[in-house]
């Protein structure tokens, strides 16, 4: 996993609540067996018309935001399907962080495991960031994971993240390697505990 420590970049806002993973990456792009190359399909049905032409008024198509690397959205971002293709496509498109008032649980987890930082900030702060991002010149935001801070014009906020997720992100560690260090515990559990609740073999 690509580590995350600090990032400074332009922000782009999609000012809607409950953006689901079907919007982030529609299902017709889930048939590939690779982990990469999904950026071109990000928000496909909002970015492109059915004939393949560009939907001019979608923020990601606005040249002013072409360099954006921080996405700001409404509450409950990433609800719906558990497809990890959602964070894969967001990262592959060039985003490093998503800021929202709240995230769906599975999407939040999937993001952390791929080095995409989901940042939860209060509604009014997110509203201010969205407004600033729409002003001429846009909004540049600096994120410091070690400090757990988000800084930009008129904004200087701290965000919460679990110590474990923070450590993994800062060091780019994948969970499997960490868990395999506890193999003794897993073996002990299989020897002593499984028979207490399992009464058939498969």
């Amino acid at each position, binding site marked *: 996993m690509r580590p995350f420590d600090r990032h400074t970049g332009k922000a782009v806002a999609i*000012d*809607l*609540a*409950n953006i*689901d993973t*079907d*919007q982030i990456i*529609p*299902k*017709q792009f*889930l*048939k*590939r*067996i*690779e*982990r990469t190359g999904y950026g071109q399909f990000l928000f496909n*049905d909002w970015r492109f018309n*059915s004939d393949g032409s560009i939907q001019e008024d979608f923020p990601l198509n606005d040249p002013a935001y072409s360099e954006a690397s921080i996405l700001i959205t*409404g*509450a*409950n971002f990433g*609800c*719906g*399907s*558990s*497809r*990890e293709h959602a964070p894969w496509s967001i990262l592959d498109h060039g985003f490093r962080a998503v800021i929202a008032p*709240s995230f*769906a*649980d*599975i999407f939040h*987890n*999937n993001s952390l*495991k*791929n080095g995409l930082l989901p940042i939860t900030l209060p509604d009014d702060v997110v509203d201010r960031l969205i407004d600033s991002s729409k002003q001429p010149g846009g909004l540049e935001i600096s994120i410091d994971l070690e400090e757990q801070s988000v800084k930009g014009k008129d904004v200087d906020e701290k965000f919460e993240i*679990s*110590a*474990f997720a923070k450590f993994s992100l800062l060091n780019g560690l*994948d*969970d*499997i390697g*960490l*868990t*395999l260090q*506890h193999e003794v*515990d*897993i073996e002990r*559990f*299989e020897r002593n*505990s*499984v028979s*207490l*609740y*399992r*009464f*058939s*073999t*498969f």
Partner: protein
Amino acid sequence: MRTLYDKIWEAHLVRQKEGEPALLYIDLHLIHEVTSPQAFEGLRINSRKLRRPELTFATVDHAIPTIGRDLPFNDPIAWKQVETLRQNCRDFGVRLYDMDRKEQGIVHVFGPEQGLTQPGFTVVCGDSHTSTHGAFGALAFGIGTSEVEHVFATQTLPQTKAKNLLINVKGELPFGVTAKDLILAIINKIGTSGGTGYVIEYAGDAIKGLSMEGRMTVCNMTIEGGARAGLIAPDETTFTYLKGRKFAPEGDGWEKAVEYWRTLPTDKGAAFDRTVEIDASSLAPFVTWGTSPEMSAMITDRVPDAPPPGRDPHSFSKALEYMGLEPSQPIQQIAIDRAFIGSCTNSRIEDLREAASVAKGHKVAGSVSAMVVPGSMKIKEQAEAEGLAEIFTNAGFEWRDAGCSMCLAMNEDVLSEGERCASTSNRNFEGRQGRGGRTHLVSPSMAAAAAIAGHFVDVRNWEFRN
């Protein structure tokens, strides 16, 4: 005093250390063609194996055709994905229930049907509707592909404990009001993120009165209310359903299992972080009008003229525009083009019986094309034996092979731009059933009735022709 969730959690703790997520043992891992290939690839890259291949079961459901299965797929990319699953299952020693097997079906129909899903288990799958299995009193939740790989390699998952939310459904569901209407009502009440951060336990007389099929419908859509897992305490209904199924405990093991399962229900007086009360007797059939499962109304109501308090106004107006509906339009005046009866929410035998009882002796409206997609090939066989298939085909419904089909429209079962569908599935998101398609979520009987009438009708007033 502990909740059902607390008990399963504690029984599966492999390791717990302050400041780290707990390590939870996984009893059953279900996989399918769409979210597994990258996880297998990860194992190969790191020269890892499956720790316990016998606890992993595979089937194909998401992208496969529901018609013409003896022919090559029209979609070469979907074919490659299925072939990849076959190769991976061979290479890593996983049992695969492929399209030529009568057990094949939607992964969340297949698991319970084979007796794999058992009370007190932890069940995961790379699919958000894994919450379905909570109907058995199993802690079941959807995971991403990285987590699929983690379970492959370690048979565990690092997890942070969620909070306990009790949804207490008192009273009795009135005639014509089903488990689907109940869960739509619950989501309407708590909102699509109302359960975020919680595991939900459904309890109360109305829940106890549900069949296993109905309980699975309720738990299935838990994720639509934001909670990753929904649970229902195991009871006699659960045990009766499980007994004799292929992978269920047998003989002495069965007795011991039931004895253990009886200890699982939440202790009297156990504390929940939050409680929501619903009165089942006040409910009517529900129809969604928007592009989020929380956007729903009773069949006797109208499309709202303003967003409900606390809900996002942008999303409200965008939803009405996408759905091509007017504020205050009566729900019963909404005409449909398509009807889809199927999905892991509503494709089990009881769902098909319910829809068939409405369809019997009627004809699908000339303006509507309707299809029934059973949840598994076993259900298909049973429905044919019970005469349900004949009722459907006589009424003009297409009768297909098992799969996810038009619930997510990854195969060729897709809505065209602007088409409006009465669907028994679980998500009415924009484009979910096809780009520009308009989805209204309903129960199987409401979908059948809408297919016949050509528009939504109140199934409580239906003319049943038995």
